[in-house]
């Protein structure tokens, strides 16, 4: 695994293995990310012109600050991070391999010097007896030891959580897996959107790009179209509200038609509950009115009281019996914000008699008698309205997402292995009534030291 030992290659290798590079990259990525949270990303040029001076805009453009997370230098940092991870893992591998396959079981004087935690004590009894006693002691307090040596000189070696050493590989590897998943997503997937009117359908969606929505020609828009290979139909769209008027639910009822067959029939899609078909997922994301609303009104002549139903499009001038006409000016789904003592939908309309002054009337759906009390020649009630909506769907295809989740699971597993388990080793040498104990851990030295002190104190007290 180690590269050739020529000077340059070697120092390059060490550079890519080094923790210094890791710390530099972590801090560098943090600093870069801060820029991206402060400078608005992918905004319209007009917006930048408002915030920054011309020179600043030019500078930021040159540095890719406006689409920073996709700039070559940010991506380069991510590649360096990956390289760093791979290199440091390869470098550690031979060392760990040895620890797995050929652990040092005997602590001689030479090796003892390399350990930072060593205690000596004198204990009574023969070496063999001490060996047995310490074997029991270690098994009880730590882990069952491997005993070697002989002729009055014995070595004990016990270890715990050897496999935790793999945690670091799992953890580092998981980051690479996540990157791989993200790359697959960005090469083979897409983020798109489509707006569909109630009662109509679409078999294409439009890719989201940085410039989407900014004064495009029809050709440019067509160039962003993606053929789904099936058809999505919006059966209906509706909004419901809480009592306080804030939105409770946006719901599109969608059907999918493939080769003339309805394969998904009237599936409600709400925020937080998308529809997935053939790896393509449709999310409820926005809505807009598809055309002017149509109002349903009843008009009664004050004398006979028989009602006549009329419909009026928003702003349209509609003739009334007797030669007058009306026009709906404004409407609201809830009057409460304007008149706290009232509730429900309302319209404001103008009634224009054949001659004379235009009258402005307020009609309330929940109070049908409201206009009757005015005592006019004609009395109106507001029965409701029809609004045709256009639902806005976010469309995403991401074949890499499962790899990303796999990476996340590995990361969590790796973190638990690497953090909460440490490979702890204890060596004991027994010789002439003299017991030497050495300890080592691959991480969290202070905690291990506390453990080691307690352990040796217990032993000395025996």
């Amino acid at each position, binding site marked *: 695994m180690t590269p050739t030992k020529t000077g340059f290659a070697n120092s390059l290798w060490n550079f890519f293995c080094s923790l210094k590079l890791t*710390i530099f990259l972590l801090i560098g990525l943090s600093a870069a*990310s801060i820029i991206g949270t402060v400078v608005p990303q992918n905004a319209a040029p007009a917006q930048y012109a408002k915030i920054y001076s011309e020179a600043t805009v030019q500078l930021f453009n040159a540095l890719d600050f406006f689409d920073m997370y996709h700039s070559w230098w940010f991506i380069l940092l991510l590649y360096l991070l990956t390289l760093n991870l791979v290199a440091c893992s390869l470098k550690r591998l031979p060392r760990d391999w040895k620890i797995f396959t050929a652990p040092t079981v005997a602590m001689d004087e030479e090796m003892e010097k390399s350990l930072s935690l060593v205690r000596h004590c004198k204990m009574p009894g023969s070496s063999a007896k001490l060996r047995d006693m310490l074997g029991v002691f270690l098994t009880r307090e730590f882990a069952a030891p491997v005993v070697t040596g002989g002729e009055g000189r014995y070595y004990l070696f016990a270890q715990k959580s050897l496999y935790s050493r793999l945690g670091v590989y799992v953890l580092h590897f998981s980051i690479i897996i996540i990157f791989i998943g993200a790359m697959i997503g960005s090469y083979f997937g897409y*983020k798109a959107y489509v707006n569909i009117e109630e009662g109509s359908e679409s078999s294409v969606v439009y890719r989201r790009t940085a410039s989407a929505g900014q004064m495009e020609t029809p050709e440019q828009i067509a160039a962003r179209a993606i053929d789904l290979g099936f058809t999505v139909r919006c059966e209906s769209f509706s909004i419901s509200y809480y009592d306080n008027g804030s939105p*409770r639910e946006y719901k599109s009822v969608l059907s999918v038609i493939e080769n003339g067959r309805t394969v998904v029939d009237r599936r409600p899609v709400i925020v937080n509950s998308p529809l997935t078909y053939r790896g393509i997922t449709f999310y409820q994301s926005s809505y807009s009115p598809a055309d002017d609303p149509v109002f349903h009104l009843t008009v009664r002549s004050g004398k006979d009281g028989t009602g006549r139903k009329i419909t009026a499009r928003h702003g349209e001038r509609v003739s009334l019996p007797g030669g007058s006409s009306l026009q709906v000016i404004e409407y609201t789904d809830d009057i409460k914000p304007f008149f706290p003592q009232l509730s429900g939908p309302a319209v404001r309309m103008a009634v224009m008699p054949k001659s004379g002054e235009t009258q402005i009337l307020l009609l309330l759906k929940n109070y049908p008698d409201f206009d009757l009390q005015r005592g006019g020649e004609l009395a109106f009630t507001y029965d409701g309205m029809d609004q045709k909506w256009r639902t806005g769907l976010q469309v995403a295809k991401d074949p890499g997402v499962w790899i990303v*989740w796999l990476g996340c699971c590995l990361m969590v597993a790796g973190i638990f292995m690497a953090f909460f388990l440490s490979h702890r080793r204890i060596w004991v040498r027994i010789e002439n009534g003299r017991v030497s104990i050495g300890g080592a851990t691959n991480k969290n030295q202070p905690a291990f030291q506390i453990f080691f002190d307690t352990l040796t104190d217990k032993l000395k007290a025996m």
Partner: protein
Amino acid sequence: MSSSFLFNVATLSYLVSMVVFFAFLGSRNKTIGLAGSIAASFGLIVQTAAIGLRWKESYDLGHGHAPLSNLYESVVFFAWTIIFIYVLIDFRYKYRAVGAFVVPFAFLGMAWAQLGLNSGIEPLVPALQSNWLLYHVITCFLGYAAFAVACGVSIMYLIKSKYEVGNGNAKSGGIMSLFPSTKFLDDLNYKAIMLGFPLLTLGIITGAAWADYAWGSYWSWDPKETWSLIVWFIYAAFLHARITRGWVGRRAAILSIIGFAATIFCYLGVNLLLSGLHSYGGG
């Protein structure tokens, strides 16, 4: 009894606990130290009941949801997690002085929430109607609380180590004798971060999973996401420096404090100063 009344009782308990812990540092009377712990534990119990009651109240209003849906509720939960983790440490190690440096975070949070934030129970907007909200918020805030404890302990470390240098290592009498040893503080700092880091990782992952489920994009470099990643980077750097470079003591304490400052920015600064998808902003 309303949840709002209980929250006030809890806030008051934390205030009492904090003052008693300060008195403990001054008087070095063990009974006073115990009283501080009892006040904090009492506050925790009351606050737990209050959160439960608020949850129930939201159902009574006809749009039940876990009380984790706006800035007020998140600050309250944050204070709860801080005290929860502190009480665990207190039971385990009985170093009362730690309370004087951790309980204030919870008290400040509660006082701010009760006095300065809109505590109305609002129905959930469509974007938040998901169980992922629960997993995401709980893991994130447990992580934040662990970092808060690490920060409090690090401040203690810096004070204690300065004092020890000033007086030579021999004796550290006075208030300082109430502080746990620097070795213990340093270890606790590390342990708290080792607990917080996996929780933050889970918080980021559940957030990504939720974003993917709700918007079709697990990562979109939204300022909140990005800042949580920055916090993650800082603590990852802390852990690397500690594990492989043996960074202990002062440098570790300072990095821990920087990490918590970034955490607070991620939690509050992003909402108050930057704009993004997360709807915890505003009051």
